[in-house]
């Protein structure tokens, strides 16, 4: 058994009376690709926030790359790169500037920064667009740039929260190729969430299915399909989490997002 890159034990997160995450445990071996699956509101994003130092657990233990996010947040932050569910680039800056600023925030040695940026831009095929403003990029290009940015400080783990949502099949395939290549060539540990079950089935070494804040099942995609007696991971997922549709509450953020889109549309 290889060492764990991420280890979670009895993790709980409560918001008042609501248990967003109730007593989950799992391990992600170093160098593996791990898929964290669940319907909307199952507790995925809350779990990622705790793993990435953005939320403090109510109880339980997390070890990321050998460090505890509550005690050594900066060491944990150096250990991972992340691609958030929503874009987190600065649209008013160029691709190069986004990467350059990231390097500055992570304390990448300044002498190495230009070389590493060039390498990462080349890796995601954006070298020729490096001086273009990010607001001119397509959704897929933004995602690739975010992957490049997440890897700039050479982390041991890459978190991807629904990295392919809203992208066409071509771009999705492209992005998974990058990720698999990183995993194979650099031994990068990948932790991702997705709603596309076939992506998890094809890409992940191991899978955890979470619902109502609890882990329903962990294992390889094959073992989960065998255990549930289903032909695909999607069927297994439905069997484990039920057919009812989950509504997510729309908050101020969603409202603003739709406003921004309307406003952008008008500006064009």
């Amino acid at each position, binding site marked *: 058994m290889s060492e764990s890159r991420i280890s979670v034990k009895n993790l709980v997160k409560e918001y008042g009376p609501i248990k967003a995450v109730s007593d989950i445990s799992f391990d992600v071996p170093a160098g593996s690709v791990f898929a964290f699956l669940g319907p909307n509101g199952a507790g995925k994003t809350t779990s990622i*926030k705790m793993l*990435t*130092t*953005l*939320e403090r657990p109510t109880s339980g233990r997390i070890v990321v790359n050998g460090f505890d996010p509550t005690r050594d*947040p*900066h*060491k944990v*932050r*150096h250990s991972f790169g*992340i691609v*958030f569910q*929503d*874009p*987190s*680039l*600065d*649209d*008013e*800056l160029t691709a190069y*500037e986004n990467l350059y*600023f*990231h390097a*500055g*925030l*992570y*304390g990448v*040695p300044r002498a190495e920064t230009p070389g590493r940026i060039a390498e990462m831009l080349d890796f995601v095929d954006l070298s020729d667009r490096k001086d273009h403003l990010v607001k001119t990029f397509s959704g897929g290009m933004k995602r690739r740039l975010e992957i490049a*940015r997440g890897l700039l400080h050479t982390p041991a783990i890459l978190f991807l929260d629904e990295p392919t949502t809203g992208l066409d099949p071509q771009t999705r395939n492209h992005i998974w190729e990058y990720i698999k290549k990183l995993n194979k060539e650099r031994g990068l540990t990948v932790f991702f969430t997705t709603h596309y079950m076939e992506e998890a089935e094809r890409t992940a070494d191991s899978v955890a299915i979470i619902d109502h804040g609890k882990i329903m099942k962990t294992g390889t995609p094959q073992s989960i399909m065998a255990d549930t007696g289903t032909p695909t991971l999607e069927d297994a997922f439905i069997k484990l989490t039920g057919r009812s549709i989950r509504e997510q509450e729309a*908050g*101020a*953020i969603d*409202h*603003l*997002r739709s406003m*921004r889109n309307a406003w952008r549309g008008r500006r064009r």
Partner: protein
Amino acid sequence: MNQTSNTFYAMYILWLRQIKRYFRSKSRMIGSLGQPVVFLVALGFGFGPIFSKAGGGNYIQFLAPGIIAMSIMFTAVFSGIELIWDRQFGFLKETLVAPVSRVAIMFGRTLGGATTAFMQGVIVLIITFVIGFRPDIALVLPALVFMFGIALVFTAFGTAIASTMEDMQGFGLIVNLVNMPLFFLSGALFPLTTAPIWIQYIADVNPLSYGVDGLRGALALLSTYSLWTDFVVVYCIAALFVVVGGWLFSRIKA
């Protein structure tokens, strides 16, 4: 690199980001010059004759420092809105998962916002020359110190408010509710020394009063308080707001 120089470099990076964005959005830069120019021309030439007939002297000399302070204040407070944008549209998260302390992030942002508001003030200062303002050139340096002080106070104020808000409409409403009375009761447009006593009390607790007074003292040699009082008050309030803003910012949930 060690942790301290890292922190300063990260602050510099966040500062640089705001400067770049400022120079890139020419429309915002030019657009926000409209209001001070209108105020200068309309009030300056409109009220000028009455002001001097009433024995107030040259109104442009009186008004120009007030308008410079106004444009700095409005730009500075509204730079808080960038925090709300960043929060809603992701970039803030990128900074919050970076190995940099929250206080350093807030500090870098505030310095960036204050610098852009300061530059806006410098542009307005130059415009006032064109309109006929004749300041004491020897005292332009202390004037710049006051301009930066005003920028710092109100950027920290805007950041503090923005740290507690999620939506932009709310921010706009709150900020206007606070900005307008602060502006009108600061002595920027008319002297308050002859106003009713309760207005003078309000002016005495208004940080902008000291900024306007210091600026006017330096540029036009007209002041109510002493320049040192103005200086100490402005920078103490700036320090206070930065601390409060840093505390509120560190409580932001991603």
